[in-house]
């Protein structure tokens, strides 16, 4: 029933949208479960991610994103905390089109902790704040004045420095996809 209502909302919202749209001064936001692969640690992880983006013009937007680490999918996962915040700019290749292709740069910080093992004993450590280099890209497809579908990829690079035994790489490729909301997109 809920899915039916959602589908109905999407259909209704598409009625007022012509093939040409204007995103300038519009907002879009999303929240989704995002799988990722930390290729430095060889660990598959999941996070809960959300972002909000404001279009300064058809070509440029300001974007802020946050993610909360949920779990490692890989057995013997070493990450115990990896919450992240990003902020930056996106460049959009298309103007006034429903399909909105973009690339962006969003440096950020991670609040990171790992299961640091010395032999079989877990060593107590302080969670670490780690600066991150990050780039994102993807497509938003506006299906109405309220909703859009999105598929984004994010590349994240960082290193945990405060673990005595080894440097932990936070390098990750993350996939974000789903249905988002928009406001002021005409």
């Amino acid at each position, binding site marked *: 029933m809920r899915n039916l209502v959602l589908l109905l909302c999407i259909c209704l919202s598409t009625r007022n949208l012509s093939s040409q749209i204007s995103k300038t001064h519009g907002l879009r936001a999303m929240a989704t479960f995002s799988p990722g692969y930390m290729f430095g640690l060889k660990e598959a992880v999941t996070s809960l991610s959300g972002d909000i983006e404001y279009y300064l013009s058809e070509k440029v937007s300001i974007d802020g994103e946050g993610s909360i680490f949920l779990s490692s999918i890989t057995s013997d996962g070493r990450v115990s905390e990896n919450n992240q915040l990003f902020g930056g700019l996106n460049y959009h290749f298309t103007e006034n089109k429903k399909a909105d292709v973009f690339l962006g*740069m969003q440096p950020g910080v991670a609040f990171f902790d790992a299961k640091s093992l010395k032999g079989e004993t877990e060593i107590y450590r302080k969670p670490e704040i*780690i*600066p991150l280099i990050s780039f994102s890209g993807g497509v938003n497809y506006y299906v109405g004045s309220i909703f859009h579908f999105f598929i984004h990829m994010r590349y994240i690079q960082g290193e945990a420095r*405060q673990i*005595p035994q080894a440097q932990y790489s936070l390098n990750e490729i993350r996939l974000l996809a789903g249905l988002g909301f928009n406001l002021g997109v005409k």
Partner: protein
Amino acid sequence: MKRLLFIIACLLPFLSFSQNEGPRRVSLGVRSTVSLFNHGSDDDAGYGAGGQIRIRLTDRINTEWFADFLTSRSSNLGFRNDAHIGWSVMYYLKDTEQFTRKFTPYLIAGHCFDYTKVEAFVDPDIQFVQAQQTEASRWSSAVQAGLGSHYNLTPRLDVSLSAQYMMHFGNHIHIEGDLPVPYVVEEDHSGVEGHLLVSLSMNIKL
């Protein structure tokens, strides 16, 4: 933090003239930084993140007010965190043509304040017998100079890459000894230490 807020408050009046005069003069941006060759060592590169405000004074002269935070490793003995807050002057080597040309190269030089914290790794099993200092921090001053270029995606949006050599003036702090009992040494005299700072930034003219 108070210093940062004060600097931002001082810069706010510039926003008003940016809106009124033809070309936009104030930019806001985010940056990723990589610190290389820390104190002559070719390993232990540091990564950082931060942001900047640019205020263009003339067609050829721009200024950049930046803050960033970097972390790096001191071999396997400990780690080092650096925070920079400073400013640079940018001189455009070619006419900017209102940033309609794709590449706009520039010379860049400036000054910054730097907060450094160094901490040695301590084995928790022997921590209680360790008499030597395991962490230290200090404020210092630095100068930096280098080259960079904008790549103008649009006249209002650019991606900038710059490389600057940054020299710090202040008491040298570093990690000595070996595992499992490394320790931090604070020199009581000032010295000059340097590193290469490569920044990639994305900036929007407001």
